[in-house]
């Protein structure tokens, strides 16, 4: 699997995801600076976490109009899988590859802790390393993770099985503070219509090696390698 990681000024999880991709695929991902006008042909594009452009205007808004994003959108429309993690998720909503928007957390505070999410859709290249209904432990670290969209879009996401992950308690139950940011319908990650774009707030790359204290995130990268060769 040949992967490209897009690097913006202010990205800070680019190297973490680089390591996770390298460990799972055995090959070195391309690191692509945001000013590049075009991407080489790759099997997967990753938009990493961080604070691109210092979150100026709105998180992800400036990065969404970076030169390289034109080609990311074009390649995505041709079916190349795109994974956006945290700030990457925000960039994907701002550039229109995913619907909705990530608003400031309901509690107005930056949230940095491990949470639990339930895998709601295991039939995608990103999630096939998990079983449907599987609860995993995964870190979040964000200020703007409060997913919001209009009622019609929310219904469509649910009806089409496009909610990939939902915040839950360790035992899979809802409520009781399981949702760290006020996100609509406890949404932690969503897919596009063709299930080739995934955006999620939690960081799988931050729990992808036993030395990090957990490996629940690793299955995402292993699954991608399995799906994409």
């Amino acid at each position: 699997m040949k992967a490209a990681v897009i690097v913006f000024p202010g990205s800070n999880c680019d190297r973490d995801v680089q390591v996770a991709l390298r460990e799972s695929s055995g090959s070195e991902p391309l690191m692509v600076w945001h000013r590049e006008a075009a991407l080489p042909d790759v099997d997967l594009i990753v938009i990493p976490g961080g604070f691109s452009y210092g979150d100026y205007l709105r998180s992800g808004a400036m990065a969404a109009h970076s030169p390289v994003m034109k080609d990311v959108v074009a390649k995505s429309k041709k079916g190349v899988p795109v994974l956006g993690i945290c700030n990457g998720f925000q960039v994907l909503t701002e550039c229109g590859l995913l619907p909705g928007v990530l608003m400031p957390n309901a509690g107005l505070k930056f949230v940095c802790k491990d949470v639990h999410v339930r895998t709601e859709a295991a039939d995608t290249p990103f999630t096939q390393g998990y079983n449907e209904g599987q609860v995993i432990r995964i870190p979040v670290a964000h200020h703007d993770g409060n997913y919001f969209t209009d009622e019609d879009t929310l219904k469509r996401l649910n009806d089409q099985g496009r909610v990939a992950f939902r915040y839950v308690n360790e035992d899979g139950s809802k409520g009781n503070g399981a949702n760290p940011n006020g996100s609509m319908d406890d949404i932690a990650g969503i897919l596009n219509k063709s299930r080739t774009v995934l955006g999620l707030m939690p960081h799988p790359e931050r729990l992808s090696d036993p030395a990090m204290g957990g490996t629940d995130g690793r299955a995402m990268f292993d699954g991608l390698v399995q799906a994409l060769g």
Partner: protein
Amino acid sequence: MKAKVHVTLKQGVLDPQGKAVLHALEALGFGGVKSVRQGKFIELDLTETDPKKAAAAVEAMCKKLLANTVIEDYRVDISEG
């Protein structure tokens, strides 16, 4: 020409920051505030001299970048520079 752009959250979209400001005002003893909505103010200095063209250009800027129309409304005021 100059353009003044006000970006505000749409009605119905929860504004936690506005709510926090409201609570802070109450805590400081300022009564009589029913609600607070917080937004952004952006000022643009334009080379365009025709007010109609300027308004159209800023409208496009709002849709493309300055506002996220999923959750935000915007208002543009054009004035002589």
